[in-house]
């Protein structure tokens, strides 16, 4: 379906890059660092897709692969050609996705002093991925604004990059003052409100700095990386099966979807055709997880808006779905349903009945919640026209998932590129055009109804058959991209095998990372008191986000530059600021 589009890309980029259509959904565009920027600029002019991820590969010591070795295609994952043989390069892969199709720009740079130009001017959302690339693989990104470290700690030695193949943990001994010196880009006299990393608003550590002028936020920056554990490198040291349990613990809220993305990818690489019953069970658990995640979010977001009653109610009702998950799998969180080649647990008639009963209860409650989030007057004052992200901005900043759908962007991989059992049991994406915080509530609650409908449909037409296939210990050489729709948006996995018992590269790009740019952008100009609600609006997940970033965005420059104000000055300013009100 994308072949005509691929030919058009080929025609446009012909003089700048060597295009190769490897499967009907994958296209490789090989180019050089010098030609990358013109090629991406020409490509963007076609208005095709969005930048999903940037993957860096260190090919040191990789076994020479046969060019053109293509892993067989499988549902949900899109295999492509193996990279060409090499000994010691860094490959930088820019993945642009549109529906099920992926166009990958490949740039090869030497391991010594690798450098690529920044494409941030053409694709604003690239900046975060480029920061990650420069830190983890030591690829210099020319033109990238200087910034603090993203996910490595400040005592991390310079010139040591954990995703290089010759990295050793001994080289990473803490060094004092090794963080790159960064001058503050805030105007002198700007008042900064620091929040975190230990703070009551979210249960996860993230450090924010908001520059404020009175109550209005004029700039925002975020330093994450408190939960960076080094999972991508850790996966390279584990076998294919062990890595499954590691990626499942990237995030405790959406553990199953991480495991699903990984298993779908590995199964595509190994050429396994998983029994339909296993895929159906995976899908049911995916949707149960989405219900639990959305109810959890509903509570937390309501809590941020000062509506603790809704928090308590939604968390009470969430226990219903937690009970169902526990009944199916034996654990409330980290259910470990997936195996390479299938699932562990069956859903029998009794379990199906209790799921149906649970869903009936939750459906009634969700109707109530939909009514609350759209009619409660005091709640609407915290959500309506707050944190508006226009459709254009949403597309430009590359948001995904419910955040994008609440801005009127129809982007849902379950519909656009069905994986697991979503092919046989299609869903309808829930889209809302209001673009504000209220829309984010409405989209997530309405998605619950879609989850209920889908689960009931699968239970009614559950395919018979086996639950799993034996998985090979070694996985055939090749690379694969596996994309799934997590509760927070598109989750992107890039897996590469050199034919061994361990993965050669596991690259994870989580949905929260895509949405950060939007949130840091949108808080500028809003009231400080609305910031927690807006932050919660994208449902940020720090542990998912374990690759993290520093963003600095400047709004209006700090106009006042008085260094120290007496109480009288402050009061006078307050009166002026609020238009000479009394008090």
């Amino acid at each position: 379906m994308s072949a005509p589009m691929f030919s058009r890309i080929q025609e446009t980029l012909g003089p700048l890059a060597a295009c190769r259509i490897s499967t009907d959904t994958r296209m490789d565009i090989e180019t050089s660092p010098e030609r990358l920027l013109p090629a991406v600029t020409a490509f963007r002019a076609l208005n095709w897709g969005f930048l999903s991820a940037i993957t860096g590969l260190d090919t040191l010591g990789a076994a020479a692969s046969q060019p053109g070795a293509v892993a067989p295609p499988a549902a949900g994952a899109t295999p492509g050609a193996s990279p060409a043989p090499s000994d010691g390069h860094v490959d930088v892969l820019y993945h642009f996705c549109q529906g099920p199709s992926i166009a990958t720009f490949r740039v090869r740079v030497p391991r010594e002093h690798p450098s690529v130009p920044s494409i941030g001017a053409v694709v604003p959302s690239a900046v975060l991925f480029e920061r990650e690339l420069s830190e983890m693989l030591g690829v210099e990104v020319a033109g990238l604004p200087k910034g603090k470290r993203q996910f490595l700690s400040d005592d991390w030695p310079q010139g040591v990059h954990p995703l290089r193949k010759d990295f050793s943990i001994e080289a990473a001994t803490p060094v004092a003052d090794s963080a790159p010196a960064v001058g503050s880009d805030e105007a002198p006299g700007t008042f900064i409100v620091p929040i975190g990393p230990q703070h009551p608003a979210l249960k996860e550590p993230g450090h924010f700095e908001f520059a404020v002028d009175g109550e209005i936020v004029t700039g925002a920056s975020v330093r994450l990386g408190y939960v960076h554990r080094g999972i991508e490198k850790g996966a390279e040291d584990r076998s294919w099966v062990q890595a499954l349990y590691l990626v499942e613990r990237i995030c405790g809220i959406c553990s199953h979807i991480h495991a699903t993305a990984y298993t779908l990818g590995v199964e595509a690489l190994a050429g396994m055709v998983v029994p339909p019953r296993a895929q159906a069970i995976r899908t049911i658990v995916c949707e149960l997880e989405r219900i639990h995640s959305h109810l959890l979010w509903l509570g937390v977001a309501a809590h941020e808006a000062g509506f603790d009653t809704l928090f308590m109610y939604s968390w009470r009702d969430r226990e219903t779905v937690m009970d169902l998950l526990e009944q199916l799998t034996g654990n409330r969180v980290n259910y470990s349903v997936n195996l390479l080649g299938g699932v562990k647990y069956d859903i029998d008639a009794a379990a199906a009945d209790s799921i149906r009963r649970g869903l009936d209860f939750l459906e009634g409650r969700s109707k109530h919640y939909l009514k609350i989030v759209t009619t409660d007057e005091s709640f609407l004052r915290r959500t309506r026209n707050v944190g508006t992200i226009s459709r254009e901005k949403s597309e430009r900043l590359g948001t995904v998932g419910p955040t994008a759908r609440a801005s009127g962007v129809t982007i849902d991989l379950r519909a656009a590129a069905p994986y697991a059992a979503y092919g046989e049991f299609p869903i309808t994406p829930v889209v809302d055009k209001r673009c504000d915080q209220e829309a984010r509530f409405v989209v997530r609650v309405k998605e619950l109804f879609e989850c209920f409908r889908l689960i009931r449909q699968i239970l009614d037409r559950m395919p018979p058959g086996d639950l799993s296939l034996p998985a090979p210990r070694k996985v055939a050489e090749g690379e694969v991209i596996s994309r799934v729709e997590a509760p927070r948006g598109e989750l992107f996995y890039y897996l590469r095998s050199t034919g061994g018992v361990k993965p050669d590269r596991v690259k994870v790009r989580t949905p929260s990372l895509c949405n950060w740019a939007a949130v840091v952008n949108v808080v500028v100009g809003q009231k400080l008191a609305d910031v927690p609600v807006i932050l919660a609006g994208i449902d940020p997940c720090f542990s998912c986000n374990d690759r993290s970033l520093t963003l600095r965005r400047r709004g209006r420059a700090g106009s006042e530059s008085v260094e120290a104000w007496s109480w009288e000055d402050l009061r006078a300013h307050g009166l002026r600021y609020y238009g000479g009100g009394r008090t």
Partner: protein
Amino acid sequence: MSDVKLPGAFRKALDRVALWSRINSPWLVHFNSGSCNGCDIEILATLAPRWDLERFGVKLWGSPRHADVLICTGPVTRLARERLVRVYEQMPAPKFVVAVGSCGITGGVFHGCYNIVGDIGEVIPVDVYVPGCPPRPEAIIDGVVQLLTKLKPPKAKRVARAARGGGTNATSGGGGTNATSGGGGTNATFGGGGTNATSGGGGAA
């Protein structure tokens, strides 16, 4: 409070009131030093209506300066280490630490990853470990209860006995509190312990 010079008996009585209130209404502060979120949402679930930890007087509070117990989750990452120590140091003494989850005990599945310093016990002293990946809410409640029972029994008995020297009958009523301290860590015993301690405290006042 310890800076102020107080007459001995009054000081002891105050200490006993403080211990009584600490056991009956411990305030928790939560810090995630690199967890996958699984334990954190279970801690929140413990506070939500089904388990409702607050009915025991437990309150999750945002500021470490007001907290008695630090609930930690996850392995300790290099960046979070310094903050974890800082949060711990900001808490007023006496302070206690409950490490929730397998990662807090050994580093769990992340053991050996390059950005992991180690388990929580390597960074700050831990009083109670709650194992599980993640532990169930009942287990988390049990962990907190075990901590409280650890605070209560023999030490309080000795304090009470010492206080009895110059004390009245009312004070020995406070000693009656200790009779319940042998109880296990179940919810019922916790509630029961709370009630008895209250009556003891009432006697002391």
